[in-house]
């Protein structure tokens, strides 16, 4: 088997310990279905052209330069050399600035994952870092110039190796608090929560990436076929939102509980449902808590 080519080679440094490492792309993205843009009037393909906004004349790539708008229509021009000069020269070293508990990692910062493996004679120090991080359940924050950009990466133990994820910068991630601030403070308790938890338990499974294929392309192909054959395109049925008054009923029905039966009979109904015994009966403490909060609330 041919050894894969590293995308980057350098060092990891933690404290005074340095170990040579190689970095490899861990994930690639697959193609999406692509449409071409057409001119509706002629049915011809269209192509993109870059033109001067005043004269309308085409501008060659070599004549295109970056500009930063300082005020209406006035720009500071930055030549490519000036932009690249801002990036510090690479010291090829992922210097670990801090370790952080894995439970505190805010995953929304994640950009791209890379595999990190020991290079040359780095195995011993590599294994120490890997096993040390795994044992203490921490990830490491390091910064270096990767592919001509200054990047912060989060390094964590992953099986026999390490995974380094490049992180988005602070200004690139929206605050979730801000995003959700319009939502009301609504805490669900009692029977509704109990029923929803029950539904979740009955749908418990595992994620197998292999189960998920992209069915979109085939669906579009069907649509195109229908259109060519002059068949009427089906009207899409949109789901109907549950009305707040019907929510409890919908939950009861989803959980396989006969809404007409009284609450005391519900437990029995559940047990007869044919759901695995363990799933139906195990969360008894939770149900009790929920029942308590229902009474008090």
């Amino acid at each position: 088997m041919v050894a894969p080519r590293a995308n980057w080679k350098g060092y990891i440094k933690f404290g005074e310990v340095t170990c040579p490492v190689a970095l490899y792309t861990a994930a690639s993205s697959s193609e999406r279905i692509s449409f071409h843009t057409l001119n509706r009037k002629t049915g011809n393909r269209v192509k993109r052209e870059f033109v001067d906004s005043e004269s309308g004349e085409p501008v060659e790539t070599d004549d295109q330069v970056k500009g930063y708008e300082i005020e209406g229509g006035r720009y500071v021009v930055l030549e490519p050399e000036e932009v690249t000069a801002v990036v510090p020269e690479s010291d090829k070293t992922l210097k670990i600035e801090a370790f952080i508990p894995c439970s505190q990692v805010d995953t929304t910062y994640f950009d791209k994952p890379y595999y990190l493996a020991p290079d040359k004679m780095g195995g011993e120090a590599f294994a120490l870092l890997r096993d040390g991080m795994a044992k203490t359940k921490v990830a490491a924050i390091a910064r270096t110039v990767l592919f001509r950009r200054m990047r912060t990466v989060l390094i964590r133990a992953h099986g026999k190796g390490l995974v380094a994820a490049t992180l988005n910068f602070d200004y690139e991630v929206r605050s979730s608090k801000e995003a959700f601030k319009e939502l009301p403070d609504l805490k669900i308790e009692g029977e509704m929560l109990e029923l929803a938890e029950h539904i979740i338990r009955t749908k418990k499974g595992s994620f197998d990436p292999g189960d998920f294929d992209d069915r979109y392309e085939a669906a579009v192909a069907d649509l195109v076929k229908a259109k060519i054959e002059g068949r009427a395109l089906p009207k899409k049925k949109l789901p109907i939102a549950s009305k707040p008054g019907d929510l409890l009923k919908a939950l009861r029905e989803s959980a396989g509980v006969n809404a007409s039966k009284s609450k005391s009979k519900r437990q029995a109904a559940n047990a007869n449902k044919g759901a695995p015994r363990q799933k139906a009966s195990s969360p008894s403490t939770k149900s009790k808590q929920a029942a308590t909060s229902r009474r008090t609330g």
Partner: protein
Amino acid sequence: MAVRPYWKGYLKLSLVTCPVEMMPATSDSEKVRFHTLNRETENRVVSHFVDAVTGKEVKEDDEVKGYQRGENEYVVLEDEELETVALESTKTIDISTFTPRDSIEWIWLDTPYYLSASEPVGQEAFSVIRDAMEAQKMVGISRLVISRRERAVMLEPRGKGIVLWTLRYGDEVRDEETYFTAASDAKADPEMMPLVQRLIKKLTKDWSPSMVEDPVQERLVDIIAAKKKATKKPSRAKSKSSTTPSTPSNVVNIMDALKKSVAAESRRRK
């Protein structure tokens, strides 16, 4: 400021359905943004579309999607027609499976979005699904068409809302075995493990967004400010002198390096 939703649809758990909207969790809006200029005139460069055959400009209203059937044969698809595509997952996130939060490795996470209830009528149903996942420490798995691809997605409660992650396809994550052959032979010296763990503990901090600040962007802003102020040519920002990496530790001196590191960190704490 209200951000226009990126996607609107429905969240569904069994017979419970509520209207939701979604926006990307990441954004370019705070980035130093450049425009492309024509070096000669310093006017903005704009892009437009021209007909590939006639060379005439094509107005935005006349642009339409074409599905390629043959070399020069296209089927025109209007957006409304595309909407009718026979897949539930274009409009509905129907949660099929729940799984413990820790069971999905980070490497599968692709792109994060924020999902919220979009109408008052759906708030309670949305909250039921969110709180039940939280109570069970589970995440939901579903399918959703985003950017013309049907993706596996993961739903994770976060505060008052839900973070929706697209998950990578099975063949998108490369087989780690290929890369970790050397790593799997690497063994840690058990005698050094306590020292490493001590060093890690000393260097462990709480997560803070300051760890993801961008020094380069700050310097770009400085350069722009200097250029704006000065008619004279500003001095080029000097790149930090690079430190040459110290020679890699070999097996013999790792122990020494670890001891030094722990000692140094202990001094710093005093």
